[in-house]
């Protein structure tokens, strides 16, 4: 039986991908950011997950204005790195896990989530930067990946409650997959950042940390945070944090934090990173 063994949250700032690709991770600016991922890189080497359900958002790369899916699940064999305007990132193609992906997609639809199934798409920094943070620069990614793309660009984005519930349904779906697989779920994006207008550059260390607190332990308070609160407190792009709720929802009633990291700034953004495991209460 497949099981979700852990949840990982991480920002997915494009500049971190640049730092990896250009060998700058030990520069003064980047070293303290990457240092916070050392623990996790080592831990992932030990954990050897078979599959990562990678919750991220497409930043106007695979989807343009013609089509905007709220929740899209990648059921394809493989995904190439998108060209976001400066050529594709020089990273390996991302290998999918169609068997598990289709199983989850089917279960979710039966569970009344109105999924969009994707068989072919390119994946942007939202998906590839977290892989680089967790695995460095391998010849081939050491895990298979099920991309789960969430609309956090055009409003309304899904409610926090719906995201959490989707996570719960994903956990049920994984648990009913017959093959023995070690599955992780990652929630990416965030933390506080605003990339537009005179208010750009907003960061909120206190709120970000309170949000991380809420993902640890037994509370499910975070599912009720409204979109406007993310925007007011953490900037327009802080809304990406709703994707962490999908990860959290998939971990069950109670979690334990294995690792936690917070750093300000990276480019326009606050970096947050959290490793959680489900805990039976």
């Amino acid at each position, binding site marked *: 039986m497949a099981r979700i063994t852990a949840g990982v949250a991480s920002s997915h700032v*494009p*500049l971190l991908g640049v730092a990896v690709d250009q060998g700058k991770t030990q520069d003064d600016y980047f070293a303290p950011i990457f240092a916070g991922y050392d623990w996790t890189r080592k831990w992932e080497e030990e954990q050897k997950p078979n599959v990562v359900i990678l919750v991220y958002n497409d*930043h*106007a*790369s695979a989807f*343009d*204005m013609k089509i905007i899916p709220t929740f899209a699940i990648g059921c394809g064999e493989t995904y190439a790195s*998108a*060209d*976001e*305007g*400066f*050529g594709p990132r020089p990273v390996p193609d991302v290998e999918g896990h169609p068997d598990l992906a289709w199983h989850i997609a089917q279960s979710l639809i039966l569970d009344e989530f109105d999924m969009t199934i994707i068989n072919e798409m390119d994946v942007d920094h939202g998906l590839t930067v977290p892989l680089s943070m967790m695995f460095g620069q391998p010849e081939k990614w050491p895990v298979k990946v099920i991309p789960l793309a969430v609309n956090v*660009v*055009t*409003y*309304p984005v899904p*409610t926090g*409650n719906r995201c959490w519930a989707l996570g719960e349904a994903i956990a049920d779906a994984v648990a009913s997959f017959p093959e023995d697989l070690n599955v992780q779920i990652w929630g990416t994006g965030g933390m*506080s950042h*605003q*990339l*537009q*207008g*005179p*208010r*750009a*550059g*907003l*960061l*909120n*260390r206190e*709120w970000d940390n*309170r*949000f991380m607190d*809420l993902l640890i332990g037994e509370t499910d*308070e*975070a599912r*009720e*945070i*409204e*979109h*406007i*609160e993310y*925007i*007011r*407190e*953490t900037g*327009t*792009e802080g809304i990406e944090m709703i994707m962490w709720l999908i990860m959290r929802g998939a971990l069950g009633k109670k979690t334990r934090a294995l690792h936690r990291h917070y750093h*300000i*700034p990276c*480019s*326009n953004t*606050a970096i947050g990173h959290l490793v959680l495991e489900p805990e039976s209460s």
Partner: protein
Amino acid sequence: MSDKKRVRDIHAYLEQFEDVPGTRVYTAARARKGYHINQFAMSLMKAENRERFKADERAYLDEWQLSDEAKDAVLARDYNALLDLGANIYFVSKLISTDGLSFAEAVASMTEHNFEDYKAMMAAGGRSPEGLRSIKGKY
């Protein structure tokens, strides 16, 4: 964080977003207004389009259903003007990348700071939300 009832009415929901200082939330209204700007920006994901755009920006822009105002805002790289016209920053990022600009530099250009001061502000902990959460509430 969660002592409020969820806003279910779409009008009330959307109205809140107009109450954040210096901020344009990418609502349907903005998405509709900026449709062709965003589709133009998206086209720069193809290397051949970037080449054509760089070779003659105005000619390339003329291929799209854009107002003169929108074309001028693109040519001037006036990102705030583009956002006012319904552009979204993730679409516009393809223009920023085409220019070879860092994201931070482009973003800084929308604020009151020059790039150096912006970087200094970020290094010092970023812009505080204090007083910037709500126009009406002034908190």
